[in-house]
């Protein structure tokens, strides 16, 4: 296994790099987009709630692979050329944001209604109350489930392999099929994923302890 790792070091490392980059981009954007749709879902306006609901239900109920293929093949064919890495990262962002929206919404809902009412009574607008009073409390509550979403996101980034996104899984497939060392290759790939996911896991636990 050491020999396999040494022989294919550059392939593994470049795959690792693309996986980390894709995960970071998707994490950042899905957190922002997810939080926005979560707020839409609890807004007083019915139109906003419907928009939020439709977004969440559509994208969390379609397989990630389908969303990714849509951007890779259909958008490329009719709108603008998107390469495999970008298509995968967009798919990953949209898919994860739907789950994050649901997670954050449940956090917002579990903050007592009185908090919002009190803040509004002080003369704050809806957005001010959301930003300064409700969201800080909501995020504290949803740190553990958010951690789950982030870890899932990293693992789901292997969807890039299906659209030639040069990620860890793509390199793993290529190495396995040329060296025929299937078991060893995927063990190494698995270990590389652990290198990304374990620190996230520990950091989220640390945050939970610090903020709770």
């Amino acid at each position: 296994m050491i020999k396999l790792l040494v022989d294919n070091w550059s392939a593994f490392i470049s795959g690792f790099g693309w996986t980390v980059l894709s995960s970071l981009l998707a994490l950042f954007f899905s957190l922002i987009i997810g939080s926005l749709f979560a707020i839409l879902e609890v807004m007083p306006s019915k139109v906003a709630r419907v928009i939020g609901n439709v977004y969440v239900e559509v994208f969390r109920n379609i397989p990630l692979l389908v969303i990714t293929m849509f951007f890779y093949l259909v958008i490329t064919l009719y709108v603008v050329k998107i390469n495999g890495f970008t298509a995968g990262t967009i798919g990953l962002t949209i898919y994860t944001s739907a789950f994050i929206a649901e997670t954050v919404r449940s956090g917002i809902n579990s903050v007592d209604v009185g908090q919002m009412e009190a803040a509004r009574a002080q003369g704050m607008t809806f957005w001010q109350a959301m930003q300064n009073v409700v969201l800080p409390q909501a995020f504290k509550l949803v740190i553990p489930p958010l951690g789950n979403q982030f870890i899932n996101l990293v693992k789901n980034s292997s969807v890039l392999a299906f659209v030639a996104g040069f990620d860890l899984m793509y390199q793993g497939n290529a190495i396995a099929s040329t060296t025929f060392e299937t078991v060893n290759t995927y063990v190494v790939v698995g270990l590389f994923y652990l290198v990304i996911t374990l620190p996230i896991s520990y950091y989220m636990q640390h945050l939970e302890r610090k903020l709770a």
Partner: protein
Amino acid sequence: MKRFKYLSLIITSLLLVLTLAGCGTQPLSSQNVLENDKKSNTITWGVKADQKLIGLIDVKDGQEKGFEIDLAKAITKKVLGKNGNAKFVTVTSQSRIPLLKNGNIDAIIATMSILPDRKKVIDFSDSYFDAGQSILVKKNSSIKSVKDLNGKTVTSAVGSNSVDNIQKIAPKARVLQLPDFAQALTALKSGQGDAMTTDNVILAGLAVENPDYKLVGGTFTTEPYGIGINKGQPDFRNAINKGLAEVIKDGTYNKLIMKWFGNVPGFDYKEVLRK
């Protein structure tokens, strides 16, 4: 819990019985495949079921159709006589060698190149088709040969040695490896790649189904296909080789080439005719 215990006991013993039952028959190496086939008047061939022009099961009538199927039938008639039967079993690239080794099929005729690694496990007949790697492009593409691929993007399927070949011949080409040939073609069609590469016969099948695409530049590798036969069957191998030689000599072979590959855009069937 108790019920599960019984269930697992039953399953385990069933597996054991099945394994032991397999031991009953004579080991394959001590059987003579040629004699068995003469007795049953049937040769069982492992063939592809999903490759247009080569070996494809027609969804309308459930019959296998293609160049390899016709060739297998012709060789069967030479080996067993006019009334010999050819039976077909569908195989994939992954399953063909295991199925041959455990005796489910007598011979493999399924786009299998004669490679040193495979020769360690099974025997091959003489080559029956001069396959080689080629490229498929859109009809109006500026790519005329493999050299034009430098700086372009090429799609292929993961795990085919086509990828290594391209990287040797056109080092500046960018290669996208997709899960299978269908996806490699879809990526090419949607504009993710400028060309697709693999064996010429596989591309020929795709070109026939997708008239906007054609093969260019001929072949730039030689990876002849051979019929796979179990080790330790010299009689059967000689019979197959003799049958193949006769099929080539009496002109049946060239007729079959023209029947299946005579009309493929960009595919020069004269390259693969035998004298």
